[in-house]
């Protein structure tokens, strides 16, 4: 069974922020997760780039306000790169 994009992004967030996956939702954000600071935000960007093999522009990084938006961004990126 292939994990969904949401599951994969949530897995990264869980690793980085040391929060169990079941406590991370689409609404999770730097406001709701304490360890999601600016250093971890950069790590999040890098981890996504590693995992999905694309690069995020500064504009795209600004869209990363919560997990749901990040998942949407990743899905868009994957569609444009594979299409």
């Amino acid at each position, binding site marked *: 069974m292939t994990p969904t994009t949401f*599951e994969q992004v949530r897995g990264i967030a869980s690793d980085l922020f040391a929060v169990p996956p079941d406590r991370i939702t689409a609404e999770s954000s730097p406001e709701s997760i304490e360890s999601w600071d600016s250093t971890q935000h950069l790590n999040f960007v890098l981890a996504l780039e590693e995992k999905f093999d694309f*690069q995020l522009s500064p504009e795209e990084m600004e869209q990363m306000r919560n997990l749901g938006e990040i998942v949407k961004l990743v899905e868009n990126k994957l569609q444009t790169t594979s299409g």
Partner: protein
Amino acid sequence: MTSDGKVLDRRKQADDFIAAGEASRAALALAELWREESGTGTAAFVVSRYEKLRDQLPLARYRLVILRSFTVEPAIPLLRASAFVNGIDLAVQLGDFNAYAQAILDPKSSLYGFAPDGVILAVRGEDLAPDLWQKFADFDPDGVGEAVKGVCHNFEQWIRGFRERSQAALIVHNLEQPARPSAGLLDAQLESGQAAAIQRINQELRRIVSEHRGVYLLDYDGLVARHGRLRWRDQRKWLTARMPIAADQLVQLAREWLRFLVPLTGKIAKALVVDLDNTLWGGVIGEDGMQGIKLSAEYPGAAFQALQRVMLDLARRGILLAISSKNNLEDAMEALESHPGMLLRPKNFAAMRINWNDKAQNLREIAAELNIGVDSLAFLDDNPVEREQVRAALPEVTIIETPDDPVAYASALRECPAFERLTLSAEDQQRTSLYAAERDRSKAEQNFRTKEDFYRYLEQEAEISPVMPATLARISQLTQKTNQFNLTTRRYSEPQIAEMAAQPGCQVLSIRVRDRFGDHGLVGVAITRDQGDACEIDTLLLSCRVIGRTVETALLSYVSQAAAARGRQRLSGEFLPTKKNAPAKEFYPQHGFQLHTQNGEGSLWELDLKQHPVPFPEWIRLNL
């Protein structure tokens, strides 16, 4: 199962082991996870779990400060995860952005307050001398020279300043070349070009570093080049986050740092134990035979030669080589000794266990024989089952994961940080041969299942020749001195030997022996006299240092064949017992001689040359 599923399972596995209090199994699961997926997210997971285990594992503690001119924060979890997996618990302090000079020169800085064991000075040329990188076209040749000098002067100040204040190890990055020099193609044609200027700085750095103890150069330019300048760089992150390195390359920087930390913490492998079949050569020697195994300069055998070449490099670095292989000894030895594709020979191995025992047991024995700890062993085996067995039984052994494709074996070995050394002594470079000589001298025989195996292993060469002026003295001396393997113990002076040699029908022969351990020199004498249809052996003796390896048979065989060639029918010889020559007592009966007469003095033996020729031992090469 998808790889994502697998790595999720590994996380759960690690957590389950931690919950069950099984620290070393948890560590193995984490190491496996890290090997499968060395990314930023995994690093955070691995670090957080190792932090729970740190008191239950034999980890080396190391305090590291990284002084830098760019953002390296995201590399730190990667470094710490790699370090944990290699048995190092790393405490890291990051210097303030671009504050490295102040940190070094101020004795009260947080750098010295941290009391580091090691410091990395990660400064990029672009940050240190932006003009040399960005505005190179503005320089005239003199200006380039001045700029180069200025950069080198800075480094010299910092390194000296650091040494005055701290005894910690210092690792200095050298400077990276631009991916595309400012003058384009022309740069390569110019003596005062941009690439040449940066090379000069790097050369000068090499000199500066060599003048200080405990200061090492990290070839950052080489690292970037290895992974590709264009792939290494992420211009967008540089402009937005002062992070010049692409996300997927950061782990390479962390790994390069780790290569220094492994020898600095003593987490090194002193010996590499290798398997034979499908590791040192392609195929199975016991089934495919000498002709069938793959080992040559051509593909696919070339992959295995490349691996052997890396092993020779490691040996030159002072790393001992050893074998643990499930094989028939003689099959394996034949390939090791005489396969034309082998670059390694038995002399390159400090210990060998070629048997059907379990490998963990063999590894324990090898460590004991080499007098090193089991934790100083690295193990290379194509068979994942063997690796797993060793990993489970001896978790302290460094296991090298072999890639599926043998072509990649050589680089897997080169990449293993446990083989890195920061300095090298003359003794390191010849360590294997010292061990090998010792092992050969004292243990060769007991490692062989049959005597014949041992004889073959010796690679003996015999040279039999009639007495010559140059050998007269030695032949006489041997008759005077030899007591044990001496059938008649007749003592002869030099003139007596010369006189006998001049008599018709008399032969004075000497034998010289060489083997894999070296030249033993002239070690045996036979004197014979033809009488009618018989050839009588007056003297047959052998120096004790070559007794028991069929040299005596070789000499007798030669004597008998020479007698037959001269038309003799019989060979006869006396055994005259003394207090010391018991080792020669059974010599004639063992070689088919019949007892002719016996009295108080001794016994006379005879051999029918037609019926009972004495075969020459097949494992000795005869030179005349």
